[in-house]
């Protein structure tokens, strides 16, 4: 099908399946692998678009379902789309439902049904019945004008024991992709990505991958994950899917954002990730750092006058002498939960951390040094203690030729 992007594969790791690439989208190029922050309703947790830009972000998420409710399709049409709504000159990717609303919908499925028509459910806001069809999801995304739009899929929790239902959902997602492709009015300016389903069943995932690849969408997502499944099962699904995917298309694993998940998934051959966690967790005073998560609401930090992360180049952590703000852990502690500015500052740091982690991974892949990067990452994260490295990480990386315990 028509594509509004260019994918330039720059390097492949000689040991793992990691790739470095440039993805050239209608609103500019983005480097892969990439983490995409989630601005569900058209803003990222109090950050101005300018501040988001400053973290290095050139591609962020909006949510079709939420923008469809507010400001609504008419408003989006009148304003000329979501870029104009939020004055964001860079790229947007719209998920139809993100992890959050996906699980809302999953839990609401008890009250509503998925039919061949679409998903019928009750509005989580006011209980009115709503029907979301593949055609309407595309129409909304055409109004939004996102650079990457996602198909409507039938999502089943990976933890569901009902294999028949999982298979039904997989086939339905394929049929819905066909309806989405037919409904897509702007293939020359917006890229539609398919979403591979099939739960944790590798055979279903294989079938689905083949079917999806045959439809030749500009990019390919692996969906239905990060819903509480075991990490080793997650890794097997990603590894299986990427093994069947063509080299020349971007691969997006939906809903993934913990740093260790990112670096392992990159080793398994995935390129793009999104997650609300790094930004949502800022509100609770959590700082993402190379040494793990620091909860700056802990009184232990009240007199810690070091930066959020030593050596971090985000605007908060950079010292005044280098044009930064010189924000300390103690000051975040002072603001935490009392002034929203504290959360805004931490959000900037966390997004910057995620983006720079992917930037460093990319550089390592280009230098063909990704295994060393992985070892360094886990050594810092677990403070040189190999016994703390989770089994799923050891196994997943061994599967792509890296013995992470040998550092």
């Amino acid at each position, binding site marked *: 099908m028509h594509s509004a992007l260019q994918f330039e594969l720059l390097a492949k790791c000689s040991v793992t399946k990691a790739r470095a690439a440039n993805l050239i989208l209608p609103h500019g190029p983005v480097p892969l692998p990439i983490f995409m922050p989630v601005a569900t*309703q*058209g*803003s*990222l*947790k*109090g*950050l*101005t*678009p*300018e*501040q988001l830009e*400053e973290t290095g972000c050139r591609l962020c998420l909006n949510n079709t*379902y*939420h923008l*469809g*409710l*507010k*400001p*609504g*399709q008419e*408003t989006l049409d*009148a*304003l000329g789309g979501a870029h*104009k*709504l*939020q*004055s964001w000159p860079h790229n947007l990717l719209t998920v139809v439902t993100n992890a959050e609303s996906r699980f809302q919908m999953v839990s609401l499925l008890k009250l509503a049904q998925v039919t061949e028509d679409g998903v019928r459910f009750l*509005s989580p*806001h*006011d209980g*009115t019945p*709503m*029907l*979301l069809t593949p055609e*309407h999801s595309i129409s*909304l995304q055409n109004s939004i004008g996102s650079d990457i739009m996602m198909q409507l899929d039938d999502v089943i929790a990976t933890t569901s024991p009902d294999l028949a239902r999982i298979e039904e959902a997989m086939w339905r997602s394929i049929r819905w992709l066909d309806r989405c492709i037919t409904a897509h009015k702007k293939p020359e300016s917006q890229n539609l990505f398919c979403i591979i389903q099939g739960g944790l069943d590798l055979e279903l995932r294989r079938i689905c991958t083949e079917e999806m690849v045959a439809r030749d969408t500009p990019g390919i997502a692996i969906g239905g994950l990060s819903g509480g499944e075991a990490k080793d099962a997650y890794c097997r699904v990603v590894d299986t899917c990427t093994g069947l995917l063509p080299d020349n298309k971007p691969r997006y694993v939906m809903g993934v954002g913990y740093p260790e998940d990112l670096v392992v998934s990159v080793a398994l051959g995935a390129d793009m990730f999104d997650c609300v966690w790094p930004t949502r967790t800022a509100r609770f005073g959590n700082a993402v750092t190379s040494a793990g998560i620091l909860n700056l609401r802990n009184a232990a930090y*009240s*007199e810690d*006058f070091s930066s959020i992360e030593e050596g971090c180049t985000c*605007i908060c952590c950079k010292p*005044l002498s280098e044009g930064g*703000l*010189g*924000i*300390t852990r*103690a*000051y975040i*502690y*002072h*603001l935490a*939960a*009392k*002034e*929203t*500015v504290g*959360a*805004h*500052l931490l959000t*900037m740091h966390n997004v910057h951390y995620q983006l720079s982690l992917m930037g460093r991974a990319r550089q390592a892949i280009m230098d063909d040094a990704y295994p060393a990067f992985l070892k360094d990452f886990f050594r810092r994260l677990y403070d040189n203690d190999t016994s703390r490295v989770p089994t799923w990480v050891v196994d997943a990386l061994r599967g792509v030729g890296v013995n992470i315990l040998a550092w």
Partner: protein
Amino acid sequence: MSDPSGPERSPDPLRFTILAGSASTSGPRLGLLTHDARNTLETPHYIADTSRGVIPHITQDTFRRHTDVKGVYVALEDFVEKAPLKTPPIYLQPTTTSPSSTLRTFTALPDTTLSILAPRRLSPIPSPNPNSSSSLAICTSVGFSALSIATYISAAAPSLNPDILVAPADIPHGNPAPSLKRRVKMLDRTASWLTDLQRAKGRVGGDYAVFAAVLPLPVEAQRWYLDSLLDAVTDDGHGDGEGHALPAGLAIYDPSAIPALPQPLTHLPRLCLAPAHSPSQLLHSIALGADLTLAPFLSTATDAGIALTFTFPAPRGASPESKSDSESDSQQQQAEKHPLGTSLWNPTAHALSTAPLQAGCACYTCARHHRAYVHHLLAAGEMLAWTLVQVHNLACLEGFFRGVRGVLGGEGEGGIVDGGEGEGGMEGRVKGRFEEERARFEDWYEVEMPVSEGVRPRGRGYMGLGLGSADGGGRGRGKGKLNGGGKWKGGGLGMGMGMGKGGMRRL
């Protein structure tokens, strides 16, 4: 004005010069507050109020990039939750700034911004406990407490080292009419605390300038205290480090005291700490001779989703009078007054508007965004809404003060007026023009802020205490009405979802 008392002491880094309007008579005046290390403030000037060291909703990078705030007011009660059990972390902050100020480093305040430290927030929450002879009753984010005067004084130098330190004042907040006995106590304590402060400064040093309180009492009732501020000077008794210099400025809790101030105090810069709830109250203080003022209505408007749109001088053109030529009904004229701002919650007015928040405004919000986006953010409960409105509201207020200074500087009448004494005609003309514009402003604009139908953001930590609610962290829900007093009516502090009004659309 440079130090009138003369003796050999390293010159204060803070100096105040009156450019127009006179020191000898009351009334509006144009001045220049200069500091060796900070921004120069042309006065009258706006001082931004902070909460826990930040202007609400404004991160430090946005502050630098997108505001023109030149001075901030910081309350120590925002920083001393665990005192005296534990030393407040802000005292311990290592600092490399020069002059060294832990306050500046801790709150990441830019080097150029003038800092003003006071013990209490601008509209202090009255404590159930009274002040004592050696401490102030304060309200921290975790509850009521006491701040000892000795602690406040010793924290000022060498650690906090603000540019301006507001001297502690014994004001019984929540009791607007203290008894005679209480008044005597107020004066005694405030005078002795000031002496303590001046002595400590003489002993320990410190680069801060002391602003002495002018209490919220009639001037006659505090005459001996005000005279005592002068005694020290005439005594010339500070050679031994025991005496005290004239304060560098005055912190005035009720601007109506200004016209009756003793003559030798009139050349001092005046920081007006009466909370202004509307621009016309600001104009009132300025008319009496306030040099620096705060405007708590700014954040209240922002929290209510109201973009301020007033200007000074008020726009010319289709004035209320000319519009109502045909029907010269005074009620009609009343109805045609212009709003001070616009509630961005209003979907019919703003949902599709790509106009800036205020026509012609060059602030970041107006330059890059439009009303439709801010409306959407409010309706969606997104925190960025308040940031964008706050950036604009700060710009609106800066513009207002620029306008005030323009009029006082004789703008449109051939440039800045020379502050030549004896030129009563010139002074009179400026004052007359200011009063004229002030009257036109009041004619043109409504008195009260527009009503907002929205939901305000999460309350500040201390807000719950003042509203007598156990839940200070919830979102107010429903129809908050913002009146002249800046209080919210109608909205409780429930744990609503932050959804605005307006029906949901079907997908």
